[in-house]
């Protein structure tokens, strides 16, 4: 039997925001916050890894 993991709330809202953005629908403030959290938390540039340091 497969266990299905529900994504955390922020990840779910961020995904919903991405889908809505693709359709250019309005985003709620909560969805905007979730999308921003995902973009800031997950975005990692190559240079950032280079110079991030301890």
């Amino acid at each position, binding site marked *: 039997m497969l266990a299905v993991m529900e994504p*955390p*709330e*922020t*990840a779910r809202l961020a995904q919903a925001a991405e889908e809505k953005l693709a359709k*250019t*629908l*309005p*985003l*709620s*403030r909560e969805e*905007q*916050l979730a*999308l*921003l*959290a*995902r*973009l*800031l*938390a*997950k*975005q*990692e*540039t*190559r*240079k*950032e*890894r*280079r*110079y*991030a*340091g301890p």
Partner: protein
Amino acid sequence: MLVLLPHNPGDVVMALQAIRRVKASYPGLPVDYVASEECRSLVEGNPLLRQAFVIPRQALRARWDAGDDAGLKSRLEDFLAALRATRYVLSANLYQERAGGLLQSRVDAERKIGLQFRDDERFQIRSRWMEHLFAVPVDRGGNPFHAVDLYARAMLRALAGTAPPPPPTKAVLSANVLPPLIRPEAARALVPGEYLAFHPGSAWPGKCWPESHWTGLLTRCARAGMKVALTGAPEERPLAERILAAAPPEARACAVDLCGATSLLGSAWVHAHARLSITGDTVAMHLAAASGAPVLALFGPSNPVETGPYGRGHVVIQTDPAPAPDLALGRPHAGLSRLESGEVAAWVLEGELPAGFPVWETFRDGEADRQILIDRHRWPHPACVRGKALARALDASAERPEASLPDAPPAEGVRADLGRILEDGANRPGGWTPDPAYLARLRSAEDALREETPATLVWEAYRIATNGLSARDFSAHLRARRERFHLTLREEAVRPGS
């Protein structure tokens, strides 16, 4: 004023150079800055800035990875609250990614320029100059503006409104762009002004000059009696080791390998005190230029007009006269490979120009308040010549669009078609819902115009601007679109093909 451009380090240095230009006209203006953790050292303690907000990305990432929703939201809201504690005269988002647009929407400012998420529904770019910045990829090689000048113009115009900005003061124009530089311990052996600084690496393969060429340059410079310091990020140590290992022992003896041994500002010290800094289009190039050290920049896929060393008297060897829109940074660049080490050494040691590649010097066009590139006969780079009229047109339309541009000639062909369709829709009553036939006509006319103007900066700026217009009230949307359409026709009349 608040400025958002969190990374990469080279971009942050360029933003700081633009802030210096703005402060030269507004010396008393306090400036705050939003940076990434990686760029913290460039902004904290910087004499140009009042305070820096550092995005707590590592803390956010840890909470995201742990699925800690409450902690993630709370940490982000703390950061946004700190940002929102000040009401700014201007918030300038120079960051071209969505995170910047969402951040900008949370800032409290009388005026905002750059990307912003608006009305809960769309990203919009405010400022003619920022629209132009976003339009640059369509005609990368034809862009006549340096990024620093675009940033500075956008901020100056926003601060000055319809009046011209106050003239710059020389005292601020010569101020330091970087925080105070301290000699790194590993660089004790270097005598300021008596060594060459090489920065051979880059995060992008396309910007890297082949390592065998660096070895060749090192060898030739060492034979001429020069000392050489190598800098780079920690992960570039193997690159520096390979460059040195391939050199003869007498050349190795003249080299000081500082790769991975200094911080970002430590590297800046090394380049700032070099007789000449030799690098690709890298952060080291921007650090050296920002500290006033002479630079020889070896350009591959990127456009030196747009992101070359900023400041007077630097030299660029351009190996690609037609930069690709996406810059193709991910693969080694054929032009850079063709530029032989002997040719670069001949320029460094003898002042002899390389064959087959244009060599440009950075020059300040004081009248137009922008950097241009000139050749040894003082003839400007073709893109800079082409852009002079565009610069005037954008300046004029940013100040007084109704009065400062000539009338456009009567529109013909697809322009006339689109004009009629916009006119038709713009005159409908408020709350009008367009029928599918109207939308099809509009789409078809816009597509035809796009086909006819595939790589023109002013029409790309039109597309960017209209894409950001709200469509909640469609006739209001069409009135704004019509206005922007006619402005673009007038700009096109000033400089066809720009």
